[in-house]
């Protein structure tokens, strides 16, 4: 894994001590809130509904056990004993006190972590495929490139006051697990006809109030040109981006207003201009990073323990079928640990659970952990013969739910339970759906289905790209939930369509249940997922299930 250089270390420490002085001056009254707010946001500190919230970056979702234990320690010492993992591969603490935040940031710096650029109009935490370095379908590990982008973007003098926040996602695999098409820039590693590695570059995707799927600005960008090309995109947008209206500031609007062809022309022009400034130092750096991310030494071993557990233990079999996928090295598996026990808060892990996951990574997983944008934790390199032991330990910690990719593996933003911007709650809706689905015992029968929930139009919970999306709104002082259908965040990305009028909170779960049952009725066998059925049949059968009254009215007319 990448290890901080002396420069990184010093930079992060200086930022913490700077912020410590700023907090002191805020508390003694020499800084007003107007002066202090931009400074705290630069350090990931928000003020939410009931408390402050600290957002800590987990670059490209990669953590080592030592770091995970430190996150647990922070949760226990300065928060309420848990942390919330988010769709942007960050962790959020919901209850820190202002005076403790500098100490928390120091504790993070002790393990090479920080909260820099987790807020504000900057280039945010670069996110990546959570199976990076392990996936069987991967062209190459995207993390060295992600780290290069992080070093380039951190404190980049030109990009600290962009028109709006800017998010980059990267995948090294054709199967897109990083939602690249819903980011400001999405990078998909590809090979050209000559077999060289490069990137398909996508710009102008995004969710929020104007959801858009990104457009391809360059079909093949040689790997060596990545940094100048990304810099060209950000700098073109930095000039063109709408600073007059924050709702029109994201690059998706710039691309929409100017057209992708004009954006491409400007980007290519700027790229030619700045390419000579990148003298190749970035490529030397990248070569070093590739060394740092070298795959662990994975040894062959007998599969007997795995096969015996698989044959004899039905619970283990369900776990292995649902939460484990094949690694690129035969005999190994990628284990997804679900933070979505039925009825639990999606994405939350207690300090004890964090420590259990850290121990398992150390003992069986070559000391690597990943946070997925789906708010789960991954052990990317586990020999299959160790998975029964991993499963047993997870079971004891309440972490063995076999539901990855199924109905109850719901993404939910914090919603009105924590977020000051929310218009309705998200968490209780997720909890109720998961609990109901567990009662019905149909989760495995239904199979692959993604439900995503946001508590307002900002769409932090990715509802637009959920097969079933739920958006919480305020209708005359009452929580109301709008349902979208047919969204998809993968390489076949699409934005879900609104199904019709929203539902009051107590009617959401029955409505979801009706959609699920309608799907079971219309599908052409178990291999046809909900999304496939939706794409084949369109919204009609699902709308009819959602709004049975209007169907009756139509039939009567």
């Amino acid at each position: 894994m990448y290890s901080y250089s002396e420069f990184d270390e010093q930079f992060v420490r200086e930022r913490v001590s700077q912020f410590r002085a700023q907090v002191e001056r805020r508390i003694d009254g020499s800084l007003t809130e107007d002066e202090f707010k931009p400074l705290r946001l630069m350090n990931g500190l928000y003020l939410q509904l009931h408390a402050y919230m600290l957002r800590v970056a987990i670059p490209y979702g990669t953590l080592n056990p030592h770091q995970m234990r430190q996150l647990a320690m922070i949760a226990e010492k300065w928060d309420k004993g848990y942390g919330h993992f988010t769709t942007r591969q960050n962790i959020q603490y919901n209850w820190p006190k202002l005076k403790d935040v500098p100490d928390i940031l120091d504790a993070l710096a002790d393990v090479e972590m920080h909260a820099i650029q987790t807020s504000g109009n900057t280039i945010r935490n670069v996110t990546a495929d959570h199976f990076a370095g392990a996936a069987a379908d991967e062209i190459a590990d995207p993390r060295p490139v992600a780290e290069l982008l992080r070093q380039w973007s951190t404190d980049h003098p030109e990009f600290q006051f962009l028109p709006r926040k800017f998010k980059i996602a990267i995948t090294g695999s054709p199967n897109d697990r990083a939602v690249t098409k819903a980011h400001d820039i999405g990078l998909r590693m590809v090979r050209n006809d000559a077999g060289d590695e490069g990137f398909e570059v996508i710009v102008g995707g995004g969710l929020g109030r104007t959801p858009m799927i990104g457009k391809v600005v360059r079909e093949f960008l040689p790997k060596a040109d990545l940094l100048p090309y990304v810099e060209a995109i950000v700098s073109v947008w930095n000039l063109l981006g709408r600073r007059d209206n924050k709702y029109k500031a994201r690059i998706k609007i710039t691309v929409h207003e100017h057209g992708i062809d004009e954006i491409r022309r400007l980007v290519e022009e700027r790229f030619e201009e700045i390419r000579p400034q990148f003298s190749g130092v970035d490529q030397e750096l990248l070569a070093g990073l590739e060394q740092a991310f070298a795959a662990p030494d994975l040894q062959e071993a007998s599969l007997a323990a795995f096969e015996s557990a698989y044959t004899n233990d039905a619970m283990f079999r369900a776990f292995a079928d649902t939460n484990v996928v094949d690694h690129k090295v035969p005999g190994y598996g990628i284990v997804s640990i679900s933070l979505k026990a039925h009825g639990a808060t999606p994405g939350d892990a207690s300090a004890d659970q964090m420590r259990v996951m850290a121990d398992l990574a150390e003992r069986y997983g070559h000391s690597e952990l990943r946070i997925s944008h789906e708010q789960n934790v991954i052990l990317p390199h586990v020999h299959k013969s160790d998975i029964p032991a991993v499963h047993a330990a997870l079971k004891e910690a309440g972490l063995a739910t076999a539901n990855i990719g199924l109905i109850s593996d719901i993404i939910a933003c914090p919603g009105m339970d924590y977020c000051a911007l929310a218009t309705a709650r998200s968490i209780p809706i997720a909890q109720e759906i998961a609990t109901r689905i567990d009662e019905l015992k149909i989760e495995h029968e239904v199979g692959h289905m993604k439900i995503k929930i946001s508590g307002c139009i900002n769409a932090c919970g990715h509802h637009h790209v959920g097969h079933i999306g739920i958006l919480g709104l305020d209708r005359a002082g009452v929580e109301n939930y709008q349902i979208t259908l047919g969204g998809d965040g993968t390489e076949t990305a699409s934005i879900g369509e609104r199904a019709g009028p929203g539902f009051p909170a107590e009617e959401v779960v029955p409505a979801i249940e009706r959609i699920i049952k309608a799907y079971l009725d219309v599908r052409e066998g178990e291999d046809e997922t909900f999304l496939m059925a939706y794409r084949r049949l369109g919204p009609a059968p699902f709308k009819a299930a959602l709004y049975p009254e209007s169907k009756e009215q139509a039939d009567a007319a």
Partner: protein
Amino acid sequence: MPRKFTPKVVTANSLIEGDAVWLTADDRWSPDMAEAQLIEDEELAQERLAHATAQPDQVVGAYLADAVAGDNGPVPTHFREAFRTRGPSNYDHGKQTAV
């Protein structure tokens, strides 16, 4: 026609803890909304808000929130403000631990 003024309380978040607090008639910041001053007069509301805004060493983001008189003091009329008096619904954290 100007909209009719509805009763308000002055609320904010405390500077150090970050939790929701309400301005009382005797100029304290209480963590309990029931202790808040219920303001029925628009001009007084603006005056009290200005008073709150002038205390940046104690609170952050003061604003006027709708409220009505309850049995033991002001109560919220909107669910958002109701959450602020209690805490989140997924854990017994925040103000609800104290009650």
